[in-house]
């Protein structure tokens, strides 16, 4: 069919995915114009829910023909507006594609479709492979695994194995020109076990927020799931101690996850920094051994009265062990306002004290409250330091102050040597301004090469 107008685009989309899964109605356009964060909304022209890679290919080809923007959407939980269709066009909600395609137990990986949620994969593994697990972030269970990978997310196994995007074993990607392309060993063999030893093409898509292609299938590393887990909480008052404590803890190689947290309310938590240490084991004996190693590593701080292990009541422990933890989500109701925004720069560990100082300074300056959690990445290779600001979406003044705080936080993050994580468009521009010129030029060339019509999630990673 020769496409000429909006009606024809609608009809073509209906032909591709079926009438039930296309909408250009006001209500869908409204909801898909925004995420739960604070970025300005912008409506798409169509919302489409494909079920197969082939349907995505056809939609992308149509979008190319019409030079129409196309924005792939997972759980929409980045809170930085990364899936807001800034230039309209087609939003592709991928959540109907939520199947597990294969599990390789011995080679410990899974192949999933792009719309698989964190919650559903967790449930699937618990039921079918209870000795395997994936790295679950603390975003809600409705967030998708591919969405988390595309933003270089982190999870419960990040301290042991790096960013969740380091756990990719293969990709199927629909390129901006419509070809479906496999990346990793799956491009050569039927097996999805690794990206190496081939040239690492996955880097063309990870961290690009869907501006270079649409990931439709993902191979993901799975890890041993130990029978037991436990949580310890080490409390200190001096943020200057954090880098050294993390260095010592990671040296033990005994921990599952290390999260540093702080919050001003309730008052018993004020000025306290809690270092949450999670451990796993197949027996009580193994857990006890790990506990002992951790206590030994931190003994100097206990002896000098600079820190100590806190009592962890059963309810609190249950919360700490929950995957995903809903504590992060609950931040959204701190102001009874339905939201929180956070800059979560990735910073070197030694910059923690500066970032913490900045957090207190900025929240005081803008008259807002905060929740803070920092997740250690790798063996103290870096940390995601969240400046999380609960806001009230019904209070324009509060929204304005929170937006200003977010802006200042991004500037501060770059100033102290960090890089904003999953940056919203204004923060992307700050990063690109500071980026090495040749690197920025390389990014532009890659983008032009892959997406000649500039249809993929335009507005993101768009240099001035």
């Amino acid at each position, binding site marked *: 069919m020769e496409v000429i107008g909006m009606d024809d685009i609608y009809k073509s989309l209906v032909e591709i995915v079926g009438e039930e899964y296309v909408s250009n109605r*006001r*209500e869908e356009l*409204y909801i898909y114009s925004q995420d739960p964060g604070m970025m300005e909304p912008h409506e798409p022209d169509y*919302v489409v829910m494909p079920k197969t890679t082939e349907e995505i290919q056809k939609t992308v080809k149509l979008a190319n023909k019409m030079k129409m923007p196309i924005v792939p959407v997972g759980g929409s939980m980045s809170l930085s507006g990364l899936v807001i269709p800034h230039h309209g066009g087609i939003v592709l*909600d991928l959540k109907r594609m939520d199947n597990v395609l294969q599990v390789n137990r011995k080679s410990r990986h899974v192949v999933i479709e792009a719309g698989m949620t964190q919650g559903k994969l967790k449930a699937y593994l618990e039921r079918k492979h209870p000795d395997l697990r994936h790295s679950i972030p603390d975003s809600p269970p409705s967030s998708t695994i591919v969405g988390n990978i595309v933003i270089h997310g982190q999870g419960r196994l990040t301290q042991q194995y790096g960013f969740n995007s380091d756990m990719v074993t293969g990709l199927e990607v629909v390129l901006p020109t419509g070809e479906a392309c496999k990346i990793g060993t799956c491009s050569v063999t039927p097996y999805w076990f690794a990206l190496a030893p081939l040239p690492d093409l996955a880097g063309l898509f990870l961290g690009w927020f869907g501006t270079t292609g649409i990931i439709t299938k993902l191979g993901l590393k799975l890890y041993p799931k130990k029978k037991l887990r436990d949580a310890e909480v080490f409390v200190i008052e001096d943020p200057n101690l954090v880098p050294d404590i993390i260095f010592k803890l990671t040296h033990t190689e005994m921990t599952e996850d290390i999260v540093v947290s702080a919050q001003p309310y309730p008052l018993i938590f004020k000025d306290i920094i809690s270092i949450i240490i999670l451990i796993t084991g197949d027996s009580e004996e193994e857990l006890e051994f790990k506990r002992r190693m951790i206590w030994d590593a931190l003994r100097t701080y206990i002896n000098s009265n600079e820190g100590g292990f806190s009592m962890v009541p059963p309810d609190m422990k249950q919360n700490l062990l929950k995957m995903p933890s809903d504590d992060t*989500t*609950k931040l959204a109701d701190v102001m009874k306002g*339905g939201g929180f925004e956070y800059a979560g720069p990735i910073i070197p560990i030694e910059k923690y004290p500066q970032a913490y100082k900045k957090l207190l300074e900025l929240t005081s300056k803008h008259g807002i409250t905060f929740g803070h959690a920092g997740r250690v990445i790798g063996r103290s290779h870096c940390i995601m330091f969240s400046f999380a600001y609960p806001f009230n979406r019904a209070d324009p003044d509060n929204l304005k102050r929170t937006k200003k705080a977010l802006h200042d936080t991004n500037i501060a993050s770059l100033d102290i040597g960090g890089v904003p994580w999953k940056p919203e468009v204004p923060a992307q521009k700050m990063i690109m301004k500071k980026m090495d010129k040749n690197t920025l030029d390389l990014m532009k060339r890659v983008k032009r090469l892959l997406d000649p019509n500039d249809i993929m999630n335009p507005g993101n990673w768009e240099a001035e």
Partner: protein
Amino acid sequence: MQAYAEQIHRCFRCGYCKFPSNYTEINCPSYSRFRFETYSTGGRLWLIWAWLKKEIEWSEHLAEIIFSCVTCRNCVEQCPMKFSDDIVDWIVAARRDMVEKGLTLPHIRDFLNNIIKHGNPWGTPRSKRDAWAEGIKLYKPDDEYLFYVGCAGSYEERGQRMAKTIAELLDKAEVSFGILGTEENCDGNEVYMLGEMGLFQELAKKNIQKFKELDVKKIVTLSPHGYNSIKNKYPKSRDLKIFHYTQLLLEIIQQGNLKLSELKAKITYHDPCFLGRHNGIYDAPREILKSIPGIELIEMERTRENSFCCGGGSGNFVIDLLGKSKDSPSRIRVREAHETGAEILVVACPSCMAMLEDAVKDDGLEDELAVKDISELVKKSAK
């Protein structure tokens, strides 16, 4: 409920409400059916707020979204926020605002009009309300229980079958009871959930008046919907005790007033939302089933607080906004029941009975899975 406009923006749209507590599948019936974010609880609440702020105007599609919530309370069960208990009330409040302004869908208007004119949502004459009840006596003030049958039990063929069976069992156990016959009025549960508060209050007033006239002390309902309405939505009365029939049947069995013999069957049980999540009654139906010798009860993956609704709540057993698809909640549910290997899907609600029996036919499972009410199994075993 009045304050909903000042509270509804608190939803973060985190999506916990889409799932059961272990996240296995989508557990919100309307989101499961349509998969657009608009049909999730979060999407719906954000649209209501947008409508209140006049960012979007009312449309038939908006009404379809708002009225396709079956008020099953999965969202209330799963939402991690402090306001979770209020979510269904917010949706009902928005419907009330729409209904008051005359902004609803033609088939919802017909549903409500039929109740106004005929006392039931199908528009069947009021005089036919007791057509099922030949030989069942009317309630007299010295009876112990008023058997409140409700619209589905009075007019819908499968509901009538349930009502007859329960009446027979009560007779057999020598329980003193009676019905209201043509004097019975709609209990108003669906009217309430659809937001027609004026009509609901009128129905409640008439029913309460009738209960008082007849000096009713104990009511046993056929439908969990009626149970919910009379117990939770009518003005509280210390003098009136309300039971769902599964509670009474269990008591009868435990007291030895019904002797149950062996009945070999593999069964699974579907928790009705208005019995389970709305009223916390999960054990009585299961205790009855376990008391039948030979019954093997196999639970579905989604059960009790995590049960997946049949899609019939909020009048949808008539209005059917979630129907006409292999992805309709009732069809997903019968496939889930079938996967357990059970031969019988047991229900305790006339709406669930109708929804699931239709779904079994639509899915071509008639030869492999029967849908039966608990009372039917008890009757068979009590012979």
